[in-house]
């Protein structure tokens, strides 16, 4: 399995802070989004504002995803 963490507005829209995806369905980060948006349709409108991290570092769509990885869904940060 691949763990997916959601934060801030993304957790709010998804109605959850954490979910899991079956590893056989994803090999790159880009493949994660359609599965997430299908499970949590309220997330879909946020797509263009989101960034993603794999194992605690910002990642892009063609970055690989492996079993045991932790993916984070990051809305625009607003610390400070």
């Amino acid at each position, binding site marked *: 399995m691949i763990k997916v963490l959601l*934060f801030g507005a993304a957790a709010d829209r998804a109605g959850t802070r954490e979910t899991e995806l079956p590893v056989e369905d994803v090999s790159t980060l880009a493949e994660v989004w359609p599965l997430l948006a299908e499970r949590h349709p309220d997330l879909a409108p946020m797509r263009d504002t989101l960034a993603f991290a794999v194992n605690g570092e910002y990642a892009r769509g063609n970055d690989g995803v492996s079993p045991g990885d932790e993916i984070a869904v990051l809305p625009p940060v607003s610390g400070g």
Partner: protein
Amino acid sequence: MFAIVEESLDVGALIQAAQRPDCGAIATFVGTTRIDESEGAAVEYLEYEAYRPMADRKLEEIGAEIEGRWDVRRVSIVHRLGRVDPGEASVVIVVAAARRGPAFEASRYAIERIKEVVPIWKREVWSDGYVWVGSQVGTRDQVSGNR
């Protein structure tokens, strides 16, 4: 010193820890909860959450960036999580340097970078609902995600 904490921030102690005989200047930035008002409602408090430990590491990276760009002797960044009431500090940045120019520039850089790259989010809790800052998602009528 780079830290993300749940309790209130002791600004005086952070500055005192940066007072060093090899430095002539300490520039500090404190971010505080401001009561904003609109449409007859007001902000009651802010609530912060973070993706840890990524956020901790990003603070350290900002510190390393600063030390690579300016001649500074000590950089401290402490960010608070959870509820932060009006007037209270959510973030404290302290930069000590031999001279004031680098101290000022580095402290400004630190807050700008925090707002760009550190995975921390704030929710404004208003008298009539809440809104996630930056995403405009929440329960207030004014929030675009609700329209």
